[in-house]
């Protein structure tokens, strides 16, 4: 008991010393926050990280198509969405800016999850309070606005807003981050972001039909599943309807161009936007040439307008038989 005042005095000495240190030392300016890179996330979130590694978000910077279109990123403005700073540093839906470091990881974990105060934002309502990355719940994570910072540059989010209610769903996540169960039964959202480079995703968006009516053969493309235009986002995306005919000897002619779905670049002044809005159907009769006995129509999806037919994705083919 007698030692208590001495201990208190000693403690007070310590406090005094600490106060003085704070008073006399100029603040050392050091910027460090959260995990250093997205690679750090893999230690605890290996399954999510593996999904992301296979996604086009991970590929955003090294994608050869992007490199070509951006003149190997000599067009530096493309960097803003292909190597973005954390989206949460910006107001909801506002344009994101390019980062200077670790561009090689493209749209990485930190791009979407790093919070402005250093913690990691999550859609999870009860994130672990003991995790070293200091996760916190952020409602914006599952909102359309989160994706809009990049994906509305070419109007996709505006198209979604205008889409029929039954097709737009709750948000982008419904189609592009579906629910998944990982090892141990943990429920989460898949980080593979299936979209234009995923055949299944494309087939969930459009379907083709064809046949014969009183005006001859017809072909249709219906945007029955995308909550935005088809094709959307990137102006180099295109989808082409082609037709070919068989003569009486059974020989097939070449594929002929019928229609292109695409949003042209601003300086392609002779072209108009022919994207297929959500829920709408394009239908056209295809005049059958003399001597033809049978026809075929198909829909080809191209990730850039000049992609050869044999490198494009055929999304459907219909026989046109009288």
């Amino acid at each position, binding site marked *: 008991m007698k030692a208590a*005042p*001495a201990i*208190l*005095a*000693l*403690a*007070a*000495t*310590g*406090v*005094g*010393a600490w*106060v*003085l*240190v704070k008073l*006399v*030392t*100029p*603040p*050392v*300016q*050091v*910027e*460090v*926050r959260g995990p*250093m*890179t997205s690679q750090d996330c893999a230690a605890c979130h290996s399954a999510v990280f593996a999904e992301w590694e296979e996604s086009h978000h991970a590929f955003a*910077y*090294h994608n050869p198509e992007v*490199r070509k279109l*951006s*003149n*190997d*990123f*000599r067009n*530096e*403005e493309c960097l*803003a969405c292909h190597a973005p*700073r954390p989206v949460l*540093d910006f107001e909801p839906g*506002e*344009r994101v*800016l390019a*980062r*200077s*470091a*670790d*561009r*090689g990881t493209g749209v990485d974990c930190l791009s979407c999850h790093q919070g402005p105060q250093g913690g990691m934002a999550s859609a999870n309502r009860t994130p672990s309070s003991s995790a070293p990355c200091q996760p916190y719940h952020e409602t914006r994570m599952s909102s359309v606005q989160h994706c809009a910072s990049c994906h509305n*540059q070419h109007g996709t989010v505006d198209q979604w807003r205008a889409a029929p209610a039954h097709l737009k769903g709750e948000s982008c996540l419904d189609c592009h981050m579906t629910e998944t169960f990982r090892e141990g039964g943990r429920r989460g959202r898949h980080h593979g972001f299936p979209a234009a480079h995923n055949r299944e995703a494309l087939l969930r968006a459009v379907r083709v039909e064809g046949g014969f009516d009183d005006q001859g053969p017809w072909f249709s493309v219906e945007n029955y599943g995308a909550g935005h235009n088809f094709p959307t986002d990137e102006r180099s995306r295109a989808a082409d309807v082609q037709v070919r005919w068989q003569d009486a000897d059974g020989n097939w002619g070449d594929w002929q161009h019928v229609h292109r779905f695409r949003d042209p670049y*601003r*300086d392609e*002044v002779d072209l108009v936007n022919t994207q297929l809005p959500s829920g709408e159907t394009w239908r056209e009769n295809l005049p059958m040439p003399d001597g033809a006995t049978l026809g075929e129509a198909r829909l080809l999806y191209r990730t850039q307008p000049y992609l050869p037919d044999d490198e494009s994705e055929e999304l459907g083919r219909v026989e046109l038989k009288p």
Partner: protein
Amino acid sequence: MIRAVTARLLLGFASGLLLLGACERPPEVEPGPQYEAFTTRPVLAEWEAETVDQALPSLDQDRVEEVRDLLDAIGAGGRLAHAATGQLQDMDARERTAALLGVVEDLRVELDHKRAAYAWLRDTGSPGLLPRLTLRLKYEKDLWSAVCLADTLLRHGNGSGLDAIAAVLEREPSDAAEEAARSYAATVIPQLPATEGWEPGADFAADWEHLTKVRALWAAERRLAPDEEQPAAFEPEVHAEIVQMCKRLRSQPLRPVDDARFVLIRQRGAVVPILEQLSFDEDRYVREHALQTLSWMGVPIRPWCEARAYDYVAALRSKLGVAGLRPRTCEALGAGRFAAATEDLHYWLQHGSRETAAAAADALLRCAGQDYLPSLQQLISDAEAFARFPAEAQYSLYTLWFALEPELEAEYPPELFDALPEGERERRSRWAAERVPTEP
């Protein structure tokens, strides 16, 4: 009892203060650089209010179409053409300029009308045309029109179109239209400021050599002649239109931002203090893009600052105190190529986030002098610490090392070389080539 304890506590607290006061400061505590307070303000809005009367009038589409109809009538010839010419001449010069710019900016305008509008701009345009006409260099695909707008820019003291002139002259004409553009381009060279011994138009080879020299001077110093003064500011009408162009930096769609950056980096050095002041603007996009534009402008910054005794490093340095602006400020500081920025950049290379460190390394590559070599060698020799820098920073520091020690074989670690795409490597090679030579 309570008094005694309180007294001991106070005594202990005081002795702690004294004890520590008597000690030296711990050696590991290294104070960071101190910066003056940074506050934002509505810079662009204020400038806009001040200059709106000097800017070209904003016209509705009907007025632009009226002018296009006049050009159509002039092209048709006869009495109607005479009247239309008179009508166009009688228009207020700034209104006419705005309308003609509206015509050439319309992507759907017929070629004849566009060429006529360019020619009228050349012959009668008011100085405010400069920024918007510079932007046409980015989009104009018709060769004759490109030459005409380059000619017009030159008449207003801007050499940004000289590359287009050279490109047309280098091209082998494949038809009459290209031949006409080439002939026109050849007539532009004699308008360039003369130098001793050059006789304009006498010999194409000599003309070409002169054009090459002027292009190089414009690229490096934003001047058309070595003895030309570096103006401190733009004339009021041009300044007002520069302000209008800067408004595009606020845009959420990227294209207007990119257009503004394209134009601003092609103006004379008087744009430097404008961009520096914009980094105080209340809009974060304006602040970021203003600094980024300085970084993209690069080489011509230094000659202008030297000629105008403008302390570029001091002007920008205060922004280093703001974490959100720090990376872009580092980049802008590097672009000035003043070694005075080295100490700050070195500090932020070591104490900044990965984003700041990458920007600081890029900036050091552009501006650090020979006396930075020992610090750089120390950084690179600590392999463990060096590996923690982002690949971009490591590559820049290696490039700087090879620039400061030219006798070294420029051999990058293979994994580092592969980590950066060609465009990124090329950019850093260019920065190395643009370095101000320093004595060892």
